[in-house]
């Protein structure tokens, strides 16, 4: 039996080799399908890994976020009854809920031109934060100092710059060595602020990896002379200028507040919990407290990072399903192609089958011969598809500038090949049954 299987394998290879071009054409569907299955899986795996890494980088999962939100339809006419998300909410939550590690309110006031000296003023995002913002969101200090409680208390006119904001306002330190920006004064909408600190560059894991390998410099420029720069997907954090939230509120609130709008002192409220196991309890308690402080108006949304992760995973899953559908269709088409070609091959080989039967081949031997052949076509197609997958993945990565590097796992290779082989078996079944049932006399007479 083993001998027969091996011979069938060689026979199959011989048959495929005898019709090289036809076999290759037949395989194309399988090659493409396997390449797309593996690519889709690699992209998904990459996105998931990037999401996990990114989440850790941005402060881990033990965070709950409160966003301003539009109230439901039936509350829209009474939304003014709610004070919105304010510093009062910060205190209410902090004082009433156990297990909170840090409160991190944010007040975004948009992007503004930052004046320093006579240069063309760049636009930077300005955001008011409290001191816990830096540790909670994993922002590290490079020079000077971070904001402190005294700044908050005194509403000091001090700022901490993101690395890109510093580069934009003062120039790249690599170009101007010896430049010390700490202690310099800048103007934000004609209000003077003193730079007290500069943050370390916040880097997406991919970006950091490439920089550490020496492929790019700090600004993302390729070191091998290639044009363009690699995108750092955390660059938005570096472009920010951080002010004490109290200073931001008192200096800019009146200036930017639309008179018709409710005073929303906070753009976002981040809450870091001590134990991720408490996430659900704390977020529910926060909802309750906020519901009271907002006078029953649901103009906020409480999100845990887990919700966020779940949402992203759902999106990834949906993309995966779409990808698999497309790959599945090409697999089916490829399979039909193989069935078709096997049928044609059998018609060509009716006489051969008759001869084999006359010298003692059983129906099962003929069945196996055809099945092995179609499976081999798919197996070879599958292997070529795996090779093609790497090319396809590169192509997709280049075309989409996907932030996540696709990750090819052994599992995905096995799934790809497994699909190919199963298609081969399914596609070969009908022709194999047909061939095995050929009457030897009729087959021998066939010209």
């Amino acid at each position, binding site marked *: 039996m083993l001998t027969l299987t091996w011979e069938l394998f060689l026979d199959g290879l011989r048959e495929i080799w005898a019709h090289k071009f036809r076999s290759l054409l037949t395989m194309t569907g399988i090659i493409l399908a396997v390449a797309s299955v593996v690519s889709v899986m690699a992209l998904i795996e990459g996105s998931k890994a990037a999401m996990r890494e990114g989440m850790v980088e941005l402060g881990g999962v033990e965070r709950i976020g409160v966003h301003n939100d539009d109230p439901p339809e039936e509350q829209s006419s009474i939304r003014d009854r709610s004070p919105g998300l304010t510093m009062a909410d910060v205190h209410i939550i902090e004082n009433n809920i156990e297990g909170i590690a840090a409160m991190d309110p944010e007040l975004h006031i948009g992007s503004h031109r930052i004046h320093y000296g006579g240069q063309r003023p760049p636009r930077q995002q300005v955001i008011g934060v409290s001191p816990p913002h830096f540790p909670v969101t994993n922002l590290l200090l490079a020079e000077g100092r971070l904001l402190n409680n005294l700044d908050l208390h005194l509403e000091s006119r001090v700022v901490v710059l993101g690395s890109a904001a510093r580069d934009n306002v003062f120039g790249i330190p690599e170009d101007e060595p010896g430049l010390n920006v700490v202690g310099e004064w800048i103007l934000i909408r004609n209000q003077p602020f003193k730079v007290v600190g500069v943050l370390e560059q916040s880097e997406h894991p991919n970006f950091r990896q490439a920089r550490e390998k020496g492929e790019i410099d700090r600004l993302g420029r390729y070191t091998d002379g290639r044009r363009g720069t690699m995108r750092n997907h955390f660059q938005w954090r570096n472009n920010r200028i951080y002010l004490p939230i109290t200073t931001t509120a008192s200096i800019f609130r009146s200036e930017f507040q639309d008179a018709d709008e409710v005073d929303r002192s906070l753009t976002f409220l981040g809450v870091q919990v001590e134990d991720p196991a408490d996430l659900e309890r704390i977020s529910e308690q926060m909802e309750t407290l906020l519901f009271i402080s907002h006078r029953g108006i649901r103009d906020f949304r409480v999100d845990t990072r887990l919700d966020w992760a779940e949402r992203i995973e759902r999106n990834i899953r949906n993309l995966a399903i779409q990808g698999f559908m497309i790959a599945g269709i090409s697999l089916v088409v490829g399979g039909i192609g193989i069935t078709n070609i096997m049928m044609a091959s059998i018609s060509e080989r009716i006489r*051969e089958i*008759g001869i084999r039967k*006359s010298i003692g*081949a059983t129906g099962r031997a003929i069945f196996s011969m055809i099945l092995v052949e179609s499976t081999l076509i798919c197996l070879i197609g599958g292997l070529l598809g795996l090779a093609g997958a790497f090319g396809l993945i590169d192509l997709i990565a280049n075309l989409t500038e996907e932030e996540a590097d696709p990750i090819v796992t052994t599992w995905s290779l096995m799934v790809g090949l497994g699909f190919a082989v199963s298609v081969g078996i399914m596609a070969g079944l009908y022709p194999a049954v047909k061939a095995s049932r050929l009457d030897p006399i009729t087959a021998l007479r066939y010209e």
Partner: protein
Amino acid sequence: MTAFLQLEKISKVYGKGMTEVIALQPTDITIDKGQMVAIIGPSGSGKSTLMHILGFLDTPTTGTIKLEGQPISRRLGNSLARIRNREIGFVFQSFNLLPKLTILQNVMLPLLYAGYRSRARKKMAMEALERVGLGNRVTHRPSELSGGQCQRAAIARALVTNPRILLADEPTGNLDSQTGRSILELFWDLHQQGQTIVLVTHDDLVAQIATRRIALKDGAVAVDTPQTGGLPAEWTNPATT
């Protein structure tokens, strides 16, 4: 001599009702071990049908076939394939070698289906090819050989499993007379070595070398008689092509 193959009341009918064709009327034939039988008859006499039944390629409509006393006419396809593989060697008019395989591979093929290992297959196939005088042509493909050589290869393939009966259907039909003669000489040699042979032919010259002649007419045995057989005296050439 002992009865090797017994056909008892064998008949074959194709189609049903209006389209019914009787290819073979109820026939009794017994073939003994070591016989060289020629089945002769004009086209449509039923000799091909008889050969298919003798060769277990086809099953009779009625009657039983006994192989060494064992009735086997009602067996299923796969066990018939096994009988074809081990007990019967076929030689066809058009050789029926697989063009993609070498002569050696062609001859090894029945042994593959019999389950022999590669080394044994090669050894036995080489022996069979030596026996028919083709030991030096084993790596050629059928297209690279003459008709006579192809028929010798086909005979080697038929002999390789040591079948009890060699069934030849018009074995010289596609060959010129000189080559045909050498093939018949080969058959005669095999017969001399004790091989049971059934030759199906419409050619009286071919039938003359057999030791028994069965003439069919309209699906029935018209003549069944022993004869001297042997190669005609005027054939003096050695068996070469």
